[in-house]
């Protein structure tokens, strides 16, 4: 199994320095992605999903500190990379698609100029003509009509859905081992969300690219991914194969999330999870979910639970499963 691992994050801790204190946002995150695997990260807003993936590309904001943890990409520690190595990681290894395609495209340069610039640094030493051909091909692959003309267009001349397709084309214009898509459809019309997601899935499957898909929709994760990480307040609380997670959810937070999906049948009023994400300046000492958990035990607010194995690769960070399984991390 070891050589098929592409990304291996261990005990990643990220803090943000802010005026008057420190926000301890990521608290020992573990995550691993195999080659060709499609991994989902699910969690409510503010739980640290974007922080996690930005750390992988080393594009965290300036006020972020990483006091602990390792991020291995193809066997090398990303957090120790410098100069050339980092440039290769970003130019050739990993690509990221941002949440808001309008903000992710420069308003005063054409689509063609922007894609070609990306290709240029992904394939140093090429010719402008080749870059152009690759850009046009990438736009075509992203099911964009009339790519030649699109090259001369500015972002404001396109619809939101087309802009996100352009961003996806940009990310996959050259071969990548990993695509990170950070809520790629939240800012789009409901009617085109599905098309864009299908495009992402088709492209990564065709190219054999691994995928980390961030979403706060369990439904999207279910359709798009092989493996799901459920994240809460800077920790991974549960991880399982997608089918297993939906058949057999274990963590009280996951259960809460599943209950808050509106059900078409049954007609019952959906209930969310009471309370909100803890204050990162003073996080709870034990399990970060304990204050909101209706099944909390005394130990929960004292000690942080490790990830316990629940069998078949299903792991859960909850003291209620401590007896059943053995700690794996």
């Amino acid at each position: 199994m070891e050589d098929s691992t592409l990304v291996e994050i261990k005990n990643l801790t990220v803090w943000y320095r802010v005026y008057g204190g420190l926000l301890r946002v990521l608290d020992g995150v573990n995550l691993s992605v195999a080659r060709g695997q499609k991994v989902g990260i699910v969690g409510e807003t503010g739980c640290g999903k974007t922080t996690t993936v930005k750390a992988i590309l080393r594009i965290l904001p300036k006020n972020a500190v990483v006091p602990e943890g390792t991020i291995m990409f193809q066997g090398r520690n990303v957090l120790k990379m410098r100069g050339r190595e980092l440039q290769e990681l970003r130019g050739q290894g990993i690509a990221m698609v941002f949440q808001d395609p309008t903000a992710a495209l420069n308003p005063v340069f054409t689509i063609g100029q922007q894609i070609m610039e990306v290709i240029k640094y992904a394939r140093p030493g090429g010719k402008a003509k080749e870059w152009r051909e690759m850009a046009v091909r990438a736009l075509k692959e992203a099911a964009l009509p009339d790519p030649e003309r699109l090259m001369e267009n500015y972002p404001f001349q396109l619809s939101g859905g087309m802009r996100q397709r352009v961003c996806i084309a940009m990310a996959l214009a050259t071969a990548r081992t990993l695509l990170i898509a950070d809520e790629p459809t939240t800012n789009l019309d409901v009617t085109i969300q599905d098309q864009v997601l299908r495009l992402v899935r088709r492209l990564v499957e065709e190219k054999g690219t691994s995928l980390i898909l961030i979403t706060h929709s369990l439904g999207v994760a279910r359709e798009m991914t092989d493996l799901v990480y459920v994240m809460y307040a800077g920790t991974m609380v549960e991880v399982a194969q997608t089918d297993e997670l939906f058949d057999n959810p274990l963590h009280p937070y996951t259960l809460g999330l599943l209950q808050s999906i509106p059900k078409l049948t049954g007609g019952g009023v959906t209930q969310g999870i009471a309370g909100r994400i803890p204050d990162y300046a003073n996080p709870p000492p034990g399990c970060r979910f304990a204050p909101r958990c209706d099944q909390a035990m005394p130990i929960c607010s004292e000690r942080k639970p490790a990830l316990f194995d629940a069998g078949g690769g299903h792991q859960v960070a909850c003291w209620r499963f401590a007896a059943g399984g053995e700690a794996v991390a």
Partner: protein
Amino acid sequence: MGLGRFMVRRLALSLLVLAGLSILIFLIARVVPGDPARLALGPRAPEWAVQSLREEMNLDKPLHVQYYLWLRGLLRGDLGKSLLTRRPVMDDIKEFLPATCEIVLFSALVMAVGGILLGVLSASYPNSWFDNVVRVVAYLGIVTPSFVWAVIFVLIFGYIWPILPVIGRLEMTVEAPPVFTGFLLLDSLIFGKYEAFWDGLRHLILPSVALALGGMAQAARITRSSLMENMGKDYALAQVAYGIPWRVTLGKYLLKPSLIPTVSVMALDIAALFANAFLVELVFNYPGISGYGIRAMLNKDVNAISGVIMVMGVIFTGVNIIVDLVVAYLDPRVRLVGGSQSG
């Protein structure tokens, strides 16, 4: 909509503005109290002489006829005679305008290049000692009127550290080129008088810098803040994430959108240069159009006043068109939609 149609619309609009301006200045110059002919000839001149001057200048005719005659002349490049210099106003303007244009152009250059450069450097090293120094100097530059800088420069370079000339346009001892364009530097180059070119350039530095400082400081601050704002945008982060070197992102992809507000504000600053040029010309004893214009106003020299203001109006309009063109080049949203958004 292409750049061509954008230009045509812009030009038509400018013509309208100029037509309005011509009516306005014609009226203002004439309804201000005081009889121009009497003022020109002095209190002791006999009434018949004043009356004949009035007739010569059409001052005895109704206003709308006067305007018609004036406008007809204007379109032929004839602005009437100055009551003060007794020469055609056009000749006066041809003599004084190039000197001022030379200062203003040079100032505009210093303002644009200096302001953008300082802004980019401050934004690249935010809150460094460099940024802090620029910030303090910029605030000083913005709050200090240009004639104060002029006086300070004359003090420093006239008395304490005389490395640059502080008076006039050219040293007496330097052979001047023949007047062809009226732009000393240009004429010197055309006629191969390199000594005059060098000396003229040295004379230009202090007045231009004194004039430019305020606008330069402002341009630096605006460039810095819009660059900083754009640095925080996702597209900047995306380029970093794609391994594009920061200098490329900063110098090309961030600078272009960031210059839009700088250039827009600079249009006003360049216009203000002409206004401020008067005191600066006075301090440096530099022969320019501003001094001529003020003298015309104090003496109610109607033709000269209208002429100078009209020429200024044309220049302002020209500057605005150029600035709009630059903005349209920088911002495709303006060029292609004709709307004006910035960002």
